[in-house]
């Protein structure tokens, strides 16, 4: 087992992200109150990450003895994740600056019983969020997602998930002065750690039943060798591992954390969380279930089928009942996770594996653009309100006072509902045709019916904006960074809604250029001496 320097290319984007994160922390130490500099460094750093990611593209191969993959799929996903982080960074400064100015204690928090304590002291004695810390955590979470998306070994999978999650737990609770933020962090943390336990137990069982394999392709081989003689413990392991990942994509019935966390977390973090972890975890899903365990598809397939159907249905139905736009978008993102699981299921049937993976990639890009766009506008509208709340009622009559902003929001809503000519429509079209090709006709029918239901609550925002009188005038102020975010999302949603071909080509070449690395030197399980030695 030798170390090959070219392996570093496989993790080059992660290393750059890490370096930028450290740089941001250092800069904050040297130059406090330079929020613009911090944001700039983080943003430029992420652009550099994207450049490095493109640069690292090469022949599909593994690295570090099959721990991570270096292939088109990882590059595509890393670009997507860096893009998500970039837009999150761009929308964060306004949000954080707004906090610094406004009253540090939440105004409309309904704290019963004890009055809120004064905000906890932060080193330096200032209230509010330390920007450097915030950006660093965002970047560290991105790093974890990248590892998760490229993991081809259970160890790296686990490390990726945990790096991502630990950073996100803190990010959810990064506004300690707000009870809701703390509550979101606590719920996310406790349930996340709980699910990690199951994930790990599943890994342990898989490790044990496949004869000590942690590499995905070796697991695949071992499962194939076991054939019909696969022990029940293996199925239990696969099930527990699936549950652990389903928690991260917020699939029903493991979704309970997500509405509360989305609502409580700072909105840019919510926007980031609603796309990044889902994308990364779904890539892990694809590698694990689509590529390593298709032999067991008749075991995990029906279970995942039920989960997918329940996820999209529950997500859509409960979204209708929401009055808070962040909660509505949370349930909507649950529903979208359900649609995306169709792609995972389709990837389980070998014939359409690449097409299904590609359609998921496209859907993730579309979902990224429309969801980040919607959250950005939600931030803008809530900031225009004195209490900074996120009620759907706040959108009444916005069309008359802010026509361009409303047009953008309407576009995102139409796209989320999957109505052409928007990116969301083609995302659904590709995804559902992959599903039909894989023979999942019933599930696709459920999904189409669900997207009809979803029209109801997405359209409500449009109705409120265009067809209701405004109760009281609001003035939305938009900074250049926010404008840039909204513009990128609008252009993307329209571009991929009218001419989706180029993006789909990239997604396809990414999905087809996929590595299945195996370790070069395997610990010889027939040679007990290696083990015995370490025992002493």
């Amino acid at each position: 087992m030798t170390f090959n320097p070219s392996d570093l290319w496989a993790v080059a984007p992660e290393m750059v992200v890490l370096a930028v994160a450290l740089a941001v922390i250092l800069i904050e130490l040297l130059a406090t109150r330079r929020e613009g500099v911090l944001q700039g460094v983080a943003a430029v750093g992420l652009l550099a990450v994207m450049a490095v990611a493109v640069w690292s593209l090469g022949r599909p191969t593994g690295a570090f003895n099959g721990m991570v993959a270096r292939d088109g799929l990882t590059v595509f996903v890393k670009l997507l994740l860096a893009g998500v982080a970039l837009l999150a960074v761009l929308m964060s400064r306004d949000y954080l600056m707004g906090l610094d100015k406004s009253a540090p204690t939440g105004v409309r928090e309904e704290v019963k019983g004890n009055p809120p304590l004064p905000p906890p002291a932060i080193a330096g004695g200032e209230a509010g969020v330390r920007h450097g810390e915030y950006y660093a955590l965002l970047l560290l979470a991105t790093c974890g997602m990248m590892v998760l998306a490229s993991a081809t070994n259970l160890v790296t999978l686990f490390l990726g998930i945990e790096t991502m999650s630990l950073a996100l737990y803190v990010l959810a609770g990064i506004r300690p002065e707000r009870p809701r933020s703390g509550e979101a962090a606590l719920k996310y943390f406790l349930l996340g750690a709980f699910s990690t336990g199951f994930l790990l137990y599943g890994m342990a069982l898989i490790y044990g039943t496949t004869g000590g394999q942690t590499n995905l392709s070796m697991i695949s081989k071992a499962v194939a060798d076991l054939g019909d003689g696969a022990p029940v413990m293996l199925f239990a392991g696969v099930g527990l591992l699936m549950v652990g990942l389903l928690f991260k994509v917020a699939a029903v019935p493991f979704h309970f954390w997500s509405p509360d966390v989305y609502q409580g977390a700072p909105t840019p973090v919510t926007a980031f969380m609603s796309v990044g972890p889902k994308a990364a975890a779904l890539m892990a899903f694809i590698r694990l279930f689509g590529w390593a365990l298709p032999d067991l598809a008749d075991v995990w397939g029906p279970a995942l089928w039920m989960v997918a159907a329940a996820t999209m249905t529950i997500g859509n139905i409960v979204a209708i009942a929401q009055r808070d736009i962040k909660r509505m978008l949370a349930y909507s993102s649950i529903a979208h996770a359900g649609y995306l699981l169709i792609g995972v299921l389709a990837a389980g049937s070998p014939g359409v594996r690449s097409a299904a993976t590609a359609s998921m990639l496209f859907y993730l890009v579309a979902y990224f653009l429309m969801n980040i766009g919607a959250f950005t506008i939600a931030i803008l509208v809530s900031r225009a309100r004195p209490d900074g709340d996120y009620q759907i009622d706040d959108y009444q009559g916005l069309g008359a006072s802010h026509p361009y902003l409303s047009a953008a929001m309407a576009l995102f809503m139409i796209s989320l509902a999957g109505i052409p000519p928007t990116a969301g429509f083609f995302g659904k079209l590709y995804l559902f045709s992959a599903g039909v090709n894989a023979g999942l006709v019933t599930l696709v029918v459920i999904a189409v019916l669900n997207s009809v239901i979803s029209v109801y609550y997405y359209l409500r925002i449009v109705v409120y904006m265009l067809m209701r009188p405004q109760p009281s005038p609001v003035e939305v102020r938009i900074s250049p960074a926010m404008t840039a975010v909204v513009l990128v999302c609008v252009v993307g949603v329209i571009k991929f809604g009218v001419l989706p071909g180029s993006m789909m080509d990239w997604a396809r070449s990414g999905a087809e250029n996929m590595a299945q690395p195996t370790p070069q030197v395997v610990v010889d399980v027939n040679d007990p001496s290696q083990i015995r030695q370490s025992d002493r």
Partner: protein
Amino acid sequence: MSNHLYLIPLLPLAGFLINGLLGRKLGDKAVGFIGSAVIGIAFVLSVAAFVELLGLPVHERHIDRTFFTWLAAGSLEVPFGLLLDPLSALMILVVSGVSFIIHIYSIGYMHGDPGYPRYFSFLNLFVFFMLLLVLGDNYPIMFIGWEGVGLCSYLLIGFWFTDEARATAGKKAFIVNRVGDFGFLIGLFLIFATFGTLSYAGVSEQARYWVGPGSVIFWITLCMFFGATGKSAQIPLYVWLPDAMAGPTPVSALIHAATMVTAGVYMVARNSFLFALAPATLSIIAWVGVLTAIFAATIALVNNDIKKVLAYSTISQLGYMFVGCGVGAYAAGITHLMTHAFFKALLFLGAGSVIHAIQHAHERAGFVGDPQDIRYMGGLRRKLPTTYWTFAVACVAIAGIPPFSGFFSKDEIIWRSFAGGHPAVGVVAMIAAGLTAFYMFRLLYLTFHGGWRGRRDQADHLHESPPVMTMPLVVLGLLSIVGGWVAIPHVLGGGMRLEHFLAPSFRIAEELSVMHGHHSVSAEYLVMILSVALAVGGILWARAWYIRNPEAPKRALARAKWLYRLLLNKYYVDEIYDYAFVQTTLAFGDGAWRWFDIPIVDGLVNGLAKLVGWMGMVIRRVQTGLVSNYALMMAIGIILVVGYMVWK
């Protein structure tokens, strides 16, 4: 022209972008000019394309141009291609022509409205999607147009958004349409799964030599027809169209009479090669069509809202078009689509002129009232002479009196029902034709004849609309007279020129068709004479009741009060949908229902939406906010998932 076919939809899109982005800066005059001009140019280009097509030999009249590869994903490859064949050539001519006239009319009608630029940009956008729908050479393009016109329709119905009822109507229309679109989309997925391609050319080529099971085709066509019932307002999804009358009247004329609602008919005609393989679906279409025709006609008999009468009349006439398709007479259906576009657009614009005048009078007299109730009209003949004469022409045309356009198209459909082996359908269609003549003339007499039944002080303020509104009426009036002359049947010495022109588009369907009815000249004469007699009878009856003896209807209605009530309440369909829904909900638990106290508002759509919303309210209660409950739910989920996988 065919090399630059893309310009035809592109021009309205450009108009939308200019008016939408710069409309406020340009001013109303420029907006109206640009909005109309782009459609006008598109119309000229359509004429050019049509002429070019006419210049080709018959078997070469099929120009399929691919402009670029639009999207590709594995086995799914969709080029951005436009198809110019007789069917689409006729459609773009009708769509752009009628749109142009209505744009001109709108300049006058919407004058001074604060939402003027928004109105024209939406209208342009609508025309763009409609042209895309009829020009596309594959299903995805058609679907995008299909969804797009629905979206614009929704935006325009709710145009005067200050009014809650109007906004609700828009939403209802959109959601009912989505229910239909759901069927259409499923049909598309089935087509893709069955044929592996989504282009008309590819599917029709395979359909031509189809040897697979007929049930697949049956389900595909049934799903697609379900989509058509949504867009074209047929039973059971017609409920949205009467409510859609909340929009500005030119919108009703363009979208809810002449173009968008005919998209379903176009879709069936375009897919004639598939429908021809599914005789069962065709029978369903014919029966749904004819039942809708008579059902809507009876409701129109008693309705008192000038636009609602026209709306039910539209539903009824669309039923005829589906009868045409259902009995395999696609060309007749499309011919009726064209003539209907002329006279129904004219009727709506005429109604708009009337409403405009009465609204004006209301404002002058400082009176707030419903300007659309025909019980408070009358005698407008002298006040609005141009409107009256053109409206009368349209009434004669829709009633089916030769030689006006409606006669030739409607009679052909009725005759083909008999000839195609559906005599029962033909009989019902004939009765509906008689009813049509009656309710249209009832409308005409109540509105324009007799004396003014509104307030006296308003009568002095009633004036004819400006020329920018009456000129379109005259043009459409002429078209309503001569429009049918391209479809004069052989027995009357005509050449059926439109049918021959359209024939290449339905060639495959003709080859596949299993229906070969007998053709007897004397029978055709008999049908013709009978339907004209019924129409004349209807007119005379209306005359007897509403001109000669205005007391007669009251006496008659007093005798058949229950029937009147049934019709006036539109067969209680909205209420039945409500009731069915309430029962379903009650089954879920009476207590919970009362607890949430959800008022029952309006029909199936709101009902279903409420049902789903109610489920949302219930299911969200599971989200207690307590971590321990979440953990418990997760644990249960884990036990279910893992347990299933272990014990399977």
